[in-house]
């Protein structure tokens, strides 16, 4: 045991980074050690995140199409032609891309609103004392824990127009008079929001729940002595106290929904209707059905820029909050 770990130790300790990076020698002993520990993770991120992104941007200004899949480096340099093409609403591709961006915004905002309402309701309920609270929390988390590939297919089955249980239930309850097409046509985006929210609301719930748990009980006691009723307590204590958590939830849900691929891809199946083609799915189908990598990359960069602009807000918020805590 001892021998193994000391061998591992020496292999970590003896990487001579200083030989290649003179600046490294100026760091303190502890800092050098920290970098050694981070090295594998940083190297992988550089390889799979940083380089491909730079490369992706590069490809977005090259005319890479089906003829250049294995010789991408021979593709002609086309300046901003790809961007002009995919952003030009007069072309079919441009028009559809703009439409997909619009659907993406609807998808993100819709999911955010629905998950927030469901998550907050659930969190508030769980924050009360009752028998079986822990069990309820566990059960409410299951939609998020169950593998989403599986649950999305369940929803796909339930939303079938002919044989799905949803239509059958709605019909027998008299809510609708004819079976609805849930996964075809213009309604698809709403179905997508409903289903994606089902997979995500437990996460919102548990984050808000953690926020609720951190509100000191005395605040409520003081408020009720001051004569605040249930609604006033929520309005003047709970909601303001939840603000920091809520801000994180809002940005995370927006961003993660924007770049989510699994939900539309699985729920909408092999022939997704236009209404359900959010940007990432549209880019995927566009790029791989025609091997239009240059234009696909240009669209990806646009999507990334939008996500990044939002991420900046998130960073700023998070760093202002607590990032520097816990250092020694």
């Amino acid at each position, binding site marked *: 045991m001892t021998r193994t770990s000391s061998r591992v130790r020496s292999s970590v300790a003896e990487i001579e980074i200083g030989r290649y990076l003179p600046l490294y020698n100026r760091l303190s002993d502890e800092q050098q050690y920290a970098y050694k520990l981070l090295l594998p993770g940083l190297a992988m991120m550089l390889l799979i995140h940083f380089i491909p992104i730079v490369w992706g941007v590069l490809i977005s200004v090259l005319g890479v199409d089906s003829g250049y899949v294995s010789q991408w480096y021979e593709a002609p340099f086309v300046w901003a032609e790809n961007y002009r093409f995919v952003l030009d609403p007069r072309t079919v591709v441009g028009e559809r891309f703009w439409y997909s961006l619009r659907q993406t915004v609807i998808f993100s905002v819709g999911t955010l609103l629905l998950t927030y309402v469901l998550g907050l309701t659930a969190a508030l309920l769980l924050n009360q004392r009752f028998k079986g609270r822990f069990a309820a929390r566990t059960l409410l988390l299951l939609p998020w824990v169950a593998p989403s590939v599986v649950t999305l297919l369940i929803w796909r089955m339930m939303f079938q127009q002919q044989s799905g249980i949803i239509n059958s239930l709605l019909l027998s309850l008299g809510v609708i008079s004819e079976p609805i097409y849930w996964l075809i046509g213009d309604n698809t985006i709403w179905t997508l929001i409903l289903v994606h929210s089902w997979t995500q609301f437990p996460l919102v719930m548990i984050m808000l729940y953690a926020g609720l748990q951190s509100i000191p009980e005395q605040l409520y006691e003081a408020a009720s002595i001051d004569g605040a009723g249930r609604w006033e307590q929520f309005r003047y204590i709970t909601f303001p106290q939840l603000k920091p958590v809520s801000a994180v939830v809002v940005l995370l849900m927006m961003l993660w929904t924007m770049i989510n691929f699994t939900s539309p891809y699985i729920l909408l199946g092999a022939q997704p209707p236009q209404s359900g083609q959010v940007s990432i799915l549209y880019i995927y189908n566009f790029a791989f059905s025609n091997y239009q990598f240059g234009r696909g990359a240009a669209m990806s960069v646009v*999507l990334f820029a939008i996500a990044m602009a939002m991420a900046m807000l998130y960073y700023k918020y998070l760093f202002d909050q607590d990032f520097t805590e816990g250092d020694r």
Partner: protein
Amino acid sequence: MIPDELHLTDSGRETLFKLLSKGVLGCLLLYALFPIYWMILSSFRTRAEITAAEPSLFPFTLDDAADIVQDPSVLPTLLEYENYLTMWDRFPVFDYFVNSLIIASVTTVFALAVGCLGGYAFSRYRFPGKIGVGGALLGTQMIPGILILLPMFLLFVWIQETLAIPLIDTYHGIIFVYTTFTVPVAIWMLRGFFDSIPNAIEEAARVDGCSRFQALVRVVLPMAAPGIAATGMFVFLTAFNEVLFASVLARGDVTPFAIGIQSFETQTTAYWGEMMAASTVATAPILILFILFQKPIVEGLTEGSVKQ
């Protein structure tokens, strides 16, 4: 002083509120659990039962249920477990499971190894560029996968053709990609768990004769075991659920469950029963594991975003 009548209305309102709470909670639970219930139920049904115009919401008729209560041994005869037998022959489900298991487990091991080192460095040390690296870690979560997939696909094709190293449709190719994608989250989550371990304990270990690295391996990691397990489960699930990269980089012999399961629905027929049977087999162990180990998992997931 509060008049008596008001007291009454107050307690009345209290009761009403409680009832309302219970009602809303019931609705939420129904929404959350019905699809899972429906999956299990459908997996025990024949195609005719599944596609019936008015499918029954319950597994048994009242008469059958009465029979079962009287004599539980009749239960197997009333269950339609055909799907669980036919799915293996009709589709290569077994291969899908094995592929997913290999890909997700190896990814988990690698991501945890790299993540433990990085998360520990993040939790314990201050170093130049820490905020930048931290930002980059979080930033990776904001990247649309497609932006990486396109160049990565070209890169893999290029490496395969010029260097003759097969990467597309191989275990090592997809595992490498998944490991990298999960490492930032792993670092972030583990950092939270390491933060909760007092520094004094590893100082004690160092005074007791450990080097820094030995203190990490022999004292800190065993103490962080619940957190490591939670992170591992998260990484495993992420790898298990991934479809964007898998749909391009892991087809053929290495097709994982997440991609393979979609083939149960063809252009002409949907084998819902078999699909739900396979889904139940995939979901059951995950849900059971979660229910058993939920505490550290839930804590770990809320740690990064909601720090108290």
